[in-house]
């Protein structure tokens, strides 16, 4: 099994956001909001850090 960088990031962000949403919120709607926000922030941070490292990759 192999994953591309973006697949790894997506899987990681999805699973961890799902777990954190269920642990930290009680109501279904609050959980969904938390999961979506956490997922968006994970992806944003991952892509931003990826671009920040890009100049050092060459």
């Amino acid at each position, binding site marked *: *099994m*192999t*994953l591309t*960088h973006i697949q*790894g990031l997506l*899987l*990681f962000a999805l*699973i*961890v956001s*799902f*777990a954190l*949403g*269920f*642990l930290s919120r009680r109501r279904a709607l609050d959980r969904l909001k938390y999961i979506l926000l956490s997922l968006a922030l994970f992806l944003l941070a991952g892509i931003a850090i990826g671009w920040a490292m890009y100049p050092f990759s060459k």
Partner: protein
Amino acid sequence: MPDEEIIAAAGSTQWRNEVNAIGITLAGWLVPGLGHALQRMWGRAIACFLSVGLLVAISVGLRGNVFTPAAANDAFDMLGYVADLGTGSFYALARWLEVHGADVSKASGDYGTRFLATAGVLNLLAALHAYETARRPKS
């Protein structure tokens, strides 16, 4: 009932709650989600079990490094071992399932190592959450 008896009864109840909470934490660490399941928090129990289980399964599929104390060369390997051990019984499962050993020569293998460490830390967080909710006075 005299005041001393009331205080003694309250102390005994508090002690019982504390022991119960520690038992729930250990159960939650050993089997991801069990700490919440014992408190009938089914949604959280299933979410913990699935999340930790998926992370471990993906980690094994990616051939990530499952750290052992014997193979630890430095403090980082030891930290990795502690993080991996956080998955409880799933750590033994990961070691048993990873028959071909780790392959961190590719990025995927390295991701696998991180996925397993994340599973461990997430499970410890869930176990601590179960402890906190078990200690909370029931309304």
